[in-house]
């Protein structure tokens, strides 16, 4: 078998795009329900900003933005998509919701979406494919070439715990409080090609690696890698995949702008990449999944330790100059607000459950939040919460 070249399509650096996997919810029970194909058919009748696609089961769908270069237009596009989707869902008596996991769905009840690739995945992974009913946000950042993408990928790795903790919105899974802020990544860890990408820093090396695995029959395409961060040669991007889908599109836009600001900082001050960052990678990743912003991180190179929220605040300070040029100061302010007072979505979910004692109710409240119509009284009580301890 001759080695195929894996062409990396050049794209404008620091452009970005967002993909969100969403839940389709039954209005009465709060359970996941089938309806992706009907909703997609309905919203596709009229021009839809960005794109809407089916996902592996009939109760999931994926929306993706067009290529954007700044926070404000990205947020505007996400809001427009959200509104179109909600209007369509209303006509079909469905609710759409964010969140990294559905709190109580039973994976046995899921039906695999009828497309060859999904049937293939279901046949290969068995029950894992249905248990894979988890919902993530993917952020793409444009790169000039494959080597730049591979370097950026490894230099983003130390920020992965921050990303996980900020976006975490999957505390409940299969009807129980998992005690994790982000239980979703535990589901993904079960797949053989998940976790971190191998330490390859130029594109030719990565191509050789890919072709080797392909000739061994381990993978067929880039889609078979479920890595936390992976290159996406056909888009010309690096794709960060560790985010849980947030409960609102506003948060999704903020997270994308945060990644963009960090990438800008990394590209402006090139420091050599060292494999030692991965010494503590899995440990830090676990801390972020389990304890969210309170997770304790260890720097693999300096040995320094500290909580995730401290790292976030430091990163925000370091990014600020570049962020003002990118037009995403507001996004950084927003992240600072989460860290200092509001917390992540997992915290909102736990507090809402404690108030209502019903996971179904939690899901329906999350759907209200996704709509952007959550009642203001509840919001007021949300913001009156005690702030997280910050240094």
């Amino acid at each position, binding site marked *: 078998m001759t080695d195929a070249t894996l062409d990396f399509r050049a794209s404008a650096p620091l452009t970005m795009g967002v993909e969100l996997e969403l839940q389709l919810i039954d*209005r009465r029970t709060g359970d996941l329900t089938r*309806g992706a194909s*009907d909703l997609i058919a309905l919203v596709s009748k009229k021009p839809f900003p960005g794109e809407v696609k089916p996902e592996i089961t*009939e109760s999931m769908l994926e929306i993706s933005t067009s290529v954007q270069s700044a926070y404000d237009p990205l947020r505007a596009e996400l809001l427009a998509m959200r509104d179109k989707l909600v209007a369509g869902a*209303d006509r079909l*008596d469905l609710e759409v919701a964010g969140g990294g996991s559905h709190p109580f769905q039973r994976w046995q*009840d899921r*039906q695999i979406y009828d497309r060859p690739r999904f049937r293939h995945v279901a046949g290969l992974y068995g029950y894992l494919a249905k248990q894979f009913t988890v919902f993530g946000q993917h952020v793409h950042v444009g790169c000039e070439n494959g080597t730049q993408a591979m370097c950026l990928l490894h230099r983003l790795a130390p920020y992965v715990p921050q990303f996980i903790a900020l976006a975490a919105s999957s505390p409940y899974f299969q009807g129980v409080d998992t005690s994790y802020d982000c239980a979703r990544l535990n589901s993904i860890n079960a797949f053989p090609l998940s976790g971190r990408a191998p330490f390859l820093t130029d594109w030719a090396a990565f191509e050789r690696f890919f072709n080797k695995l392909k000739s061994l029959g381990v993978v067929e395409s880039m889609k078979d890698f479920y890595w936390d961060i992976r290159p996406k040669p056909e888009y010309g991007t690096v794709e960060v995949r560790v985010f849980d889908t947030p409960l609102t599109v506003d948060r999704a836009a903020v997270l994308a702008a945060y990644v963009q600001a960090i990438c800008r900082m990394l590209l402006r001050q090139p420091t050599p990449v060292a494999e030692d960052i991965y010494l503590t990678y899995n440990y830090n990743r676990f801390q972020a999944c389990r304890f969210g912003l309170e997770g304790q991180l260890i720097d693999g190179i300096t040995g320094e330790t500290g909580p995730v929220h401290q790292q976030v605040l430091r990163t925000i300070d370091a990014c600020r100059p570049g962020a003002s040029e990118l037009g995403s100061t507001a996004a950084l302010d927003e992240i600072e607000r989460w860290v200092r007072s509001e917390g992540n979505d997992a915290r909102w979910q736990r507090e809402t459950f404690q108030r209502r004692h*019903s996971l179904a109710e939690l899901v329906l409240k999350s759907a209200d939040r996704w709509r952007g119509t959550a009642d203001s009284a509840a919001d007021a009580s949300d913001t009156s919460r005690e702030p997280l301890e910050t240094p």
Partner: protein
Amino acid sequence: MDLSFLPDWPPVWPAAVAVAVLALFAAAAGEAAARWLRVPRLLGYLAAGAVFGTAGYLLELLQVEPLPTRTLQFSMDFAAAVILFDLGQRVSFGWIRRNPALLGASVLESALSFAGVFAVMRMLDFAPLPSALIAAISMSTSPAVVLAVTREMRAQGQVTERTLLLTALNSIYAVVLSTLLLAWARVETRGVLDDFLLHPAWLIAGSLGLAALGARVFLLVVGFVGRDRSVQILVMLAVVWIVFASAVALRLSPLLALLACGGFVRTFDRERLLATTDFGLASGVALTLFFALSAAVVDGSALFGAWMAALALTLVRVACKVGAVGVLAPLTGISLRKGLLTGLGLLPMSATAIMLTQQVSQLNPQLGAQTSSVLLASVLILQVVGTLTLMLALRASGEARAER
């Protein structure tokens, strides 16, 4: 030797035991239908009921033991009450606010069915009033069949939800219209107009008022007792019983009262208590009994009914329902194909239609006799055919859970 401790011969059982014996047969027959014929269980329940009814009829002919028809009838009415309440709380009436075209589709399919059946009956030389009554009642889809089949197949999706909604709506139209027609019949015979609107007004306003009251009581008690499932089911059965008995006692429409009670429960449920409530168990038991009993008590003379008229009614009803829901499908936000499948889902008729005819027979025996022969025969056809088309529609739309 004193043998007085022994029972009298033959021993005396309470009549209700017949229901229990029938339930045993039905449970087994339902499983047989699902396992060997791969059809919905309700067809097995019906078969068990039919055999039981025939056997009872023979025993009665041989003067061995009369079938306790009153007990059976009462059990069946109560089972129907549970089913109607369950449908009412299952259906999303608020949906028509968010998608008004659905109400249009509902009105059109019912109006067309009415017009089509009325025209056919007139062509077959039925008088205008019986024709209109038959047409009004055949607007309705069987709530029992639709609930039983969607539950059994664990169906989820647009065809399922729309079938449930349109069924609840056309059942309501049928009650209201048949009441109006009965009132009109009284006006015709007595020539006084003043009570034309009085009876329907009493029936509709009274039933809705009773339903709202029942719903408030239900939510009050359920909100207090919390989330224990068995207690929730008990409260549900108690409220259904009270609303049903009150509707009968006050000469209201039990069908309308219970359907509306379920709907109000969902509408008034601001705390979303219902989100975690599942009446599936109670409803499943009620459905089994309902189908078995409805076949057991069916009047044997229905077999000599107006088969030609029933066949004509069936054909025109199929064309109207499938056509109307299909044509309006794109306006309501789904594909033509799913619209046509929803139309097929609306075909089942069942004993709930017969219960409407019974109301007619009580109030106007002559009119009752004219309409019931056609309707009974139609129910016999459409109960089986409609169940199968609904099953096929759910399978074809991919909304049924994959069979094991």
